[in-house]
C-alpha cells in the first residue's frame, strides 16, 4: 500500500535525525504519538506537536510519564491507529513493563530510543549505544522483538517507515535504536513522493464476529488483528491466554503461547535480517558495527587498508533478531571479527557467541559520550589481525 500523501513532506530537507524520525513516522501513517520530554529525543515529539494539528487525524499528547506514554500508544493502536513513542535511556527503563505487555498482547507499535550515555541519568546530551541488550532482554519473561539502528538522518527516515512496516507485519513492538549523534546531526534528507513509499497496512481480519479468534495464528505464526469498536467484543489481556484471548492458567497454554511468541520472530528471522557489507569477501578482518560508530569505522578501515590489512565492514541495520548464521559463516572462513560499539560489550557478546570459537572476536568499545577515536579502532584491527595469524 502506498503512503498517505497528507503525512508526507516530499522534498529535499536539511534536518536532524530526530526530525527525520518524526517525518518518517508521519509518512508511515503514524497518527498518534504519546511522549514525554527527555534529552536527546525531545525534538521528535516537538516536531510532531507542530505537525500533528495540520495532518488529518493526527494527535499528539504529552503524557505525565513514560509509563503512561508507553501504554497510551497501545490504547491508540487498539483503537485502530498506528502509534509511536519516543524516549531515551532512563525512559526506556521505565517502559519495560509495557514493552512486555505489547509483546504479550501482540500490539504493533514503535518505541524509539535515542540512546545517550548511561547508566542512570548519565550524559543526557552525549551519545552512547549501551541500550542494545536492554532492547532485547529488558522486560521480564520470554519474548522476541525487532530492533533497528540507523546511521544517518536519511536512513532514520527510511528505517522509521521500515520499523512501522515490520511491526504491522509481525504484530510485534519494534525498538528503533538511534543514538544522540544521529539524532542531532543535520544532513540532507530527501523525502520522496507519497506514491514511492511502501507502507504495510494493518492486517485486520476479514472474518465476522463469532468466527474470528484474536490469537489464532496464520501460517507465519502471526494472528490477524481487530480494533475496538468494530463489534468483535473480544478480550485482550496480559495474562497467559488461549486463542480466544481468555486467561488460561495452565502450563500447556503457557507453552503454546510463549513458543509462538518467540518463534514468530525466530522462524521468520531470515526475512527480517538486514545488514550492509563492504569489502568483506577478500577481508581478513571484518568490523561488525551499527549506528554512528559505523561512520567512524569506515574511516578506520581506510587507514588499515593503507597499512596493508584487508578489512571489511558489516553494518547491522536490523540488530535484533541477530544474523547469527552470517557471523558464523564469516568466522568459519577465518576472518577475525572486531566489534566496534559505544559500550563495554553488548552486541559483542552476540558476535562472540555466533562465531562459536571459529575466529577471534575483539571488542573496540568505550564508555560512551563521544564517537570512537579512529586510532583506537585501528589498534583493535591490528590486534585482531595478529590474533588471526
Amino acid at each position, binding site marked *: 500500500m502506498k503512503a498517505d500523501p497528507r503525512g508526507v513532506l516530499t522534498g529535499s530537507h536539511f534536518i536532524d535525525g530526530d526530525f527525520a524520525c518524526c517525518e518518517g513516522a508521519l509518512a508511515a501513517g503514524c*497518527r*498518534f504519538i*504519546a511522549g514525554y520530554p527527555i534529552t536527546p529525543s525531545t525534538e521528535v515529539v516537538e516536531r510532531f506537536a507542530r505537525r500533528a*494539528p*495540520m495532518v*488529518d*487525524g493526527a*494527535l499528539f*499528547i504529552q*503524557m*505525565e*510519564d513514560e*509509563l*503512561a*506514554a508507553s*501504554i*497510551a*500508544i*497501545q*490504547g*491508540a*493502536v*487498539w*483503537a*485502530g*491507529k498506528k*502509534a509511536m513513542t519516543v524516549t531515551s535511556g532512563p525512559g526506556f527503563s521505565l517502559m519495560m*513493563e*509495557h514493552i512486555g*505487555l505489547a509483546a504479550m498482547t501482540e500490539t504493533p507499535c514503535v518505541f524509539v530510543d535515542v540512546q545517550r550515555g548511561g547508566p542512570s541519568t548519565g550524559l543526557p546530551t552525549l551519545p552512547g549505544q549501551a541500550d542494545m541488550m536492554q532492547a532485547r532482554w529488558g522486560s521480564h519473561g520470554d519474548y522476541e522483538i525487532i530492533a533497528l539502528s540507523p546511521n544517518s538522518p536519511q536512513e532514520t527516515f527510511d528505517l522509521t517507515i521500515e520499523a512501522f512496516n515490520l511491526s504491522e507485519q509481525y504484530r510485534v513492538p519494534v525498538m528503533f535504536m538511534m543514538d544522540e549523534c544521529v539524532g542531532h546531526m543535520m544532513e540532507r534528507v530527501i523525502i520522496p513522493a507519497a506514491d514511492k513509499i511502501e507502507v504495510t497496512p494493518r492486517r485486520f481480519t476479514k472474518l465476522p464476529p463469532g468466527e474470528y479468534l484474536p490469537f489464532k495464528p496464520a501460517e507465519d505464526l502471526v494472528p490477524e488483528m481487530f*480494533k*475496538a*469498536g*468494530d*463489534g*468483535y*467484543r*473480544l*478480550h*485482550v*489481556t*496480559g*495474562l497467559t491466554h*488461549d*486463542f*480466544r484471548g*481468555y*486467561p*488460561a492458567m495452565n502450563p*500447556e*497454554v503457557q507453552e*503454546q503461547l510463549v513458543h509462538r511468541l518467540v518463534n514468530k520472530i525466530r522462524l521468520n528471522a531470515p526475512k527480517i535480517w538486514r545488514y550492509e557489507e563492504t569489502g568483506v569477501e577478500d577481508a581478513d578482518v571484518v568490523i561488525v558495527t551499527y549506528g554512528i560508530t559505523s561512520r567512524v569505522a569506515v574511516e578506520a578501515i581506510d587507514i588499515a587498508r593503507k597499512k596493508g590489512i584487508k578489512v571489511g565492514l558489516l553494518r547491522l541495520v536490523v540488530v535484533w533478531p541477530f544474523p547469527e548464521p552470517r557471523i558464523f559463516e564469516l568466522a568459519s572462513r577465518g576472518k577475525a571479527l572486531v566489534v566496534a560499539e559505544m559500550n563495554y560489550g553488548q552486541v559483542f557478546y552476540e558476535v562472540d557467541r555466533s562465531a562459536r570459537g571459529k575466529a577471534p572476536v575483539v571488542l573496540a568499545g568505550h564508555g560512551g559520550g563521544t564517537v570512537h577515536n579512529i586510532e583506537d579502532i585501528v589498534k583493535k584491527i591490528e590486534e585482531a589481525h595478529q590474533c588471526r595469524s
Partner: protein
Amino acid sequence: MSILNELQKASLSPTAGLTGPDKHPMDDFLRMDRMPHIWCSTCGIGVSVNCFAKALEKCGFPLDDVVVVSGIGCTGRVAGYVKVDSFHTTHGRAIPFATGLKLANPKLKVIVFSGDGDIIAIGGNHFINAARRNIDITVICINNFNYAMTGGQVAATTPEGAILSTSPFGNFEFPFNLPFLAESVGAVYVARWTSLHVYNQTNAMVEAMKKPGFSFIEIVAPCPTIFERQQKMGDGLDRLRWYCENSEIRADAKTKEADIRLHDKMIVGKFVDKERPTYLEAMNTHYQERLGPKYKVYEG
C-alpha cells in the same frame, strides 16, 4: 491438542444438564463461557457489574462502541467477564490506556473499572492527570480498602487502625479521601455509593457515562474474605447491614468531610456535578482560534 479440548469444554453451557431455568436477562451482556466468576460469596464486585449492566441498558449506547479497561486485582477481572471489547492491562495503567483509546477514536465510550489500589496508589499519577485534562472517560473505582487479590495488604485507602497483612498491628497511615481528591484535581462528576445502594449506583453510572468529561464513581464494597474477616466485621451481608445503618446520604455533601473511618458514619451521595470542556473540545477550540481555517477539527 489440549487447546482444542479447552475450547470444546468452553463451548458447553455452564448450566448444561441442570434442572430449572438457566438464563438470566443479563446473560447477553456477560461472557457466559467464563462463568462462574472468581469473586467470593458476598463480595461487592458482582453487584457493581450487575448495576453496570443495567446502567448500560438504560443509557442505550450501542454495545459495539463500549470499551471496558481494567487494571490488575479482583476488580480488574471485570474486563474479562463483560461481553464488550475489553482490555486487561498492567497494574495501575488502565487510565492512560483508556486515554489512548478515547483520543484515537472519540466515538468509543470508554469505562475504566478498577480497584482502589490500582487506581489511586500505583495509578495515582495517571488518575490525577487524566482528571486534570478532563479526558472523556468514566472511572468506576471499587474500594474495598485493601489489595485483595494478593492476599490483603494495606492500601492507600485503608482506614486508620485496620489490621491487614502488611499492617499486622493496625494501620497508622492516613488514607486518601477519594471524592476530595477527585474534586480537587478537576473531575466533573464525583459520587460515592456502597454496594447496598444499587439503584443509586446504577443511576450514578448512567449519569457519569452520559456526562462528557472525567467522571469518577467510588463504590465502597465489602471484601468478606479479607478485609471484613481481618477486622472481625462478619461477612458481606453483615457489612451491608453496617452500610445501611452507617451511611449518610447528604444532599449538599462536601467532599472535605467525606473521610472514611473504621467505625464512624460514612457520607455517600453525589458530590460534584459540574461542567468543564473536555480535552478534545478544548484542543479543537484552541486550534481553531490559533490556526484558523487551516485546521481541520479532530474527530478521530
